[in-house]
């Protein structure tokens, strides 16, 4: 970390010529152009190269389109099937968001409870881990039996997939609070609620956001599994139907849209993270 020079020795303890502009706060580091190339251009080049090989190589080797359609065929299919894909995409997105939200609410409540009580911690943690050892794909049919063919089983399955990373990260976040900072709060007469709001929650935020970023991408998988087990709509359903009819390009089209949703959700989570924790972006070196 680079810092402004110390000037404590001056008689008044005042640095002679210190102003924010003397320091390096907010100044771009390492070269803007260099970062642009590193973060955007290099990965983009890899993706373009990958797509180009995919576009050229399989047809040249005589691979049939129904086995592996080329990227351009898939893009064409997305455009042609848009009226089919779009409403189904909205259905899946709805399941993803509701499932994630359900998991988030439960995980945040549980995270606080586990962090603040050793008894709850001991009682719930094994159950938490156990819930993860059960394969979601295996219990999904049970949810269909319980909740029918509507949106509910998909939401529950999505929530189940999101729940674990959210909870574990929240608990880890609350556990990471500096005990000395807690002492400082206590010495200044801060009660539990204030200590939580002003210390524990902000301390846990980086960890909570790590959980959010993992689980929004998992949520896409959860919703798809839910639709596979039993549904009449959604991109998962589109995939099942299209593969039964060997419309491979449509299968890929749906996969691309699922993937785009996952990436978009991840980016949104990252954006929210930056807005909520501006100090992290400002101090990252």
């Amino acid at each position, binding site marked *: *970390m680079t*810092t*402004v020079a*110390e*000037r*404590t*020795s*001056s008689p*008044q*303890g*005042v*640095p002679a010529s*210190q*102003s*924010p502009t*003397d*320091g*390096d*706060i907010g100044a771009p580091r390492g070269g803007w152009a260099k970062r642009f190339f590193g973060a955007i251009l290099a990965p983009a080049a890899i993706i373009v190269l990958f797509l180009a090989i995919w576009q050229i190589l399989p047809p040249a080797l005589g691979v049939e389109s129904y086995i592996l359609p080329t990227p351009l065929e898939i893009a064409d299919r997305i455009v042609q099937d848009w009226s089919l894909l779009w409403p189904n995409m909205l259905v899946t997105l709805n399941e993803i968001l509701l499932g994630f939200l359900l998991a988030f609410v439960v995980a945040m409540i549980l995270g606080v409870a586990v962090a603040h009580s050793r008894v709850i911690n001991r009682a719930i943690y094994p159950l938490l881990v156990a819930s993860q050892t059960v394969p979601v794909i295996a219990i999904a049919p049970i949810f269909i039996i319980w909740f029918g063919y509507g949106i509910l089983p998909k939401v529950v399955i999505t929530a189940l997939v999101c729940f674990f990373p959210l909870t574990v990260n929240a608990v880890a976040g609350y556990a990471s609070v*500096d005990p*000395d*900072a807690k*002492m*400082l*709060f*206590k*010495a*200044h*007469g*801060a009660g539990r609620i*204030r200590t939580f709001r*002003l*210390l524990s929650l*902000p301390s846990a*935020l980086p960890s909570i956001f790590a959980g959010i970023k993992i689980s929004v991408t998992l949520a896409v998988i959860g919703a798809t599994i839910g639709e596979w087990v039993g549904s009449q709509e959604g991109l998962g359903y589109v995939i099942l139907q299209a593969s039964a009819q060997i419309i491979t390009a449509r299968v890929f089209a749906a996969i691309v849209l699922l993937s785009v949703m996952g990436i978009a959700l991840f980016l949104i989570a990252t954006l929210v993270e930056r807005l909520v*924790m501006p*100090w*992290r972006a*400002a*101090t990252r070196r």
Partner: protein
Amino acid sequence: MATTEPRMDDVPALEVHAVSKYFHPRGKPPVVALKAATITVKRGEFVSLLGPSGCGKTTLFNMIAGLIEPSEGRIVIDGEDVTGTAGHVGYMLQKDLLLPWRTILKNVTLGAQLLGRDIRAVEQEARSLFERFGLKGFEDAWPANLSGGMRQRAAVMRTLLSGRDILLLDEPFGALDAMSRANMQAWLLDIWKEYERTVVFVTHDIDEAIFLSDRIIVMGARPGSVRLEITVESPRPRVLDDVETAAYRAQLKQRILSVIHGGPAADGPHQTTPSAAPVGAAG
């Protein structure tokens, strides 16, 4: 500082009355962390608690701050019994404990905010202090953008802005390098004089204690207790490399060292006492 009202000078700022602390680890005999400590600190005084690790100075500190309750004895601040209650002192630890998600301005006002002081007034007061604390221009910076010395000064400002007369400083400069440390010591004395606070300072550095304090309370370990109270006679303002007082300071240091090592007050320059010597006899 508008927050310290004038008080009767004959009431000590802080009285520690025969305070003991026992810990009871499960399955083990109880541990005496501190035995019958009695300390009186006058208003405006700079007192250091000096001792090796395990002498109970941090335990005593935590009891004064109200973080833990004494097993025996009373803590009296401004003539009022505050035993076991927090929020009566400004408290600073070795770590600056600046919260990374708060700007420097929000960090220095945190203590005041927690104590329920009017946050707008405190923020205004804080802004006027930034120049004096060598932090001008860094009001809206994040703590991660500051150097170690600047962070430490911000932590001192937070402690000052708590508005409490007594400032408890627990090895505040322990993590700094020798150069910044010497600077910070001189600077702290300026601040202390200017804002007329009562400072109780924990350290295990004898030179630091001699340089800073009006009075040094030497503590010993096993059991933690007060072994010696010593008044530092050298006049202020003090200069670190003052030749005239060098001999006096060396003599003080020798006396303190001999007490810490558990022997009787020694006169010889290189006298060391065997580690098996009985403790608790001196002082």
